[in-house]
């Protein structure tokens, strides 16, 4: 079981939910930039949520399936087609052996996830299949996909097989069949994300009162110097009231750092485990997925919320995912 890469897209890599538990040794977490989309895509095809999938950025790949497969494309709006025919995102899709899936250019959002029943079978490195590009580690030989790469998928579960049977019965000779059901969670993604919610963090008061106000109200643009390690923002310069030097300590995805230059950096999935810049704020866990869908050049504001609110929204999201997981086993 597997597929062959005809065109890799701009940046396509194998990701799961990341490497946990080894940050104390400096091991970077990595994993999906938009974990919500990855989890939903896996649920739709009947995988474990932690299964490895492809993360693709701005322009998706073109892949040929060597055997029949069950897939789902979730995340930003990168329109997919099979053998030239449009297929909707956020749905389980059965695809025949020999069919070609193409994930196009982003219309809205920035990243899409291609989950395949059985998960992508690359070696587990330190508990995860995620690619950490900078250290050339994990995923497929520690790198992004290239032309002619061939990837295998893992063994199918009963749940995977059930969905495959139901959908393939509907194909009636065509090279794909689309599941009717789709999760309402797909509506959590606005076409133009204008606000990201965050909480004040340990060194927020290192900023002048005016700069604190700017941080939580001004419009910031995501610059082109943004990647899986971090998003550099451009907007009103923020003034530190001291040297801005901190003894290095833990940072993580969503940490909003203020370097002496005064332009914020939001750390993303491949960020280092520790840092020495002032930590002004921390993006709410529920908004990390939305943040990952902001494309370079787009503008947004950071809105302050309380930890209580952020935790409540996180628990609400998980409750919704639980329902989705349950519903996914009933419907089709």
């Amino acid at each position: 079981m597997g597929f062959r890469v005809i065109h890799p897209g701009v940046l396509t890599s194998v990701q799961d939910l990341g490497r946990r538990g080894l940050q104390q040794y400096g091991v970077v977490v990595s994993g999906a930039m938009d974990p919500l989309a990855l989890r939903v895509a896996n649920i739709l095809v009947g995988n474990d949520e932690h299964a490895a999938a492809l993360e693709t950025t701005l322009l998706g790949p073109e892949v040929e399936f060597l055997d029949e497969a069950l897939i789902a494309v979730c995340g930003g709006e990168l329109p997919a087609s099979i053998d030239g025919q449009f297929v909707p995102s956020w749905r389980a899709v059965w695809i025949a052996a020999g069919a070609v899936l193409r994930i196009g250019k982003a219309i809205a959002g920035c990243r899409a996830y291609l989950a395949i029943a059985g998960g992508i079978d690359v070696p587990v490195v330190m508990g995860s299949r995620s690619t950490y590009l900078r250290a050339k580690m994990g995923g497929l030989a520690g790198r992004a996909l290239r032309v002619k790469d061939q990837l295998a998928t893992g063994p199918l579960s009963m749940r995977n097989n059930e969905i495959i049977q139901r959908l393939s019965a509907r194909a009636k000779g065509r090279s794909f069949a689309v599941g009717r059901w789709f999760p309402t969670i797909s509506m959590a993604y606005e076409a133009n994300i204008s606000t990201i919610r965050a909480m004040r963090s340990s060194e927020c008061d290192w900023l002048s009162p005016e700069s604190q106000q700017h941080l939580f109200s001004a419009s910031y643009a995501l610059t082109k110097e943004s990647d899986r390690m971090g998003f550099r923002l451009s907007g009103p310069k923020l003034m530190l009231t001291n040297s801005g030097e901190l003894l290095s300590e833990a940072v993580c995805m969503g940490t909003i750092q203020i370097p002496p230059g005064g332009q914020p950096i939001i750390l993303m999935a491949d960020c280092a485990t520790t840092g020495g810049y002032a930590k002004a704020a921390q993006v709410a866990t529920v908004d990390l997925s939305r943040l990952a869908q902001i494309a370079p050049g787009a503008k947004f504001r950071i809105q302050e919320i309380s930890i209580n609110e952020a935790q409540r929204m996180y628990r609400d999201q998980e409750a919704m995912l639980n329902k989705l997981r349950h519903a996914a086993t009933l419907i089709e």
Partner: protein
Amino acid sequence: MSSSHQTLRSSTTTQPKWRILPLGDSAVIVRLGNEINRATFDTVRALAQYLEHNAFPGFVEQVPAFVSVTLYYDSRRISLAEVCAWIEHVVPTLSQQVAGAPRLVEIPVCYGGRFGEDLEFVAQHNKLPPGEVVRIHANATYLVHMLGFMPGFPYLGGMSDRIATPRRPSPRVTIPAGSVGIAGSQTGIYPLESPGGWQLIGRTPLMLFRPNENPPVYLRAGDLVRFRAISADEFHAYPKAGSWGSA
């Protein structure tokens, strides 16, 4: 309490003053001091060790650093208030925890030449012969304060100010894995090939990052490190580091 953004707690025991600083909705920083000193280091180690053996339900992982330990938790399973209560209960008891004797780890280093292209510069900068730089560097005992920045990278304390040298004005595009460098009054070892601005004085043949081992690192926080000067022949006699990346 749980509605405040920045919880500030101080203990009244013999501990240095400590505070809980939330880092968003899924982590808290336990700041155990404001500057690098023995008491703070011991408290950081004590909390890290305690957590290794007595994690609370919902605990995800920890990152000990110079003066803090950051605790990641699963806020679906435990609230901020509960995490704070646990920390407030544990931290005051930490002075009684026995940390055990530190490991003493020897790191062989081939100094100078093509292994340490900046040795001459470091010597000139400090008005010392290169051999004296090597002697000073190899005759100190260093403490691994923490790991971070990249997998297995040790933040070492204890370098003599006599060999302190500012970073290079522009960073090198690639520094080979194992490079031993100086940046200001710090010394460190690059576990992976990476760009960097440190002054390189030598290289170790040891792999500091070992993804197939558990833990995946050669040095750990709390270890004591000594460098031993070796020849180029000795360097090459060490087994070549294999390709460990992935399939």
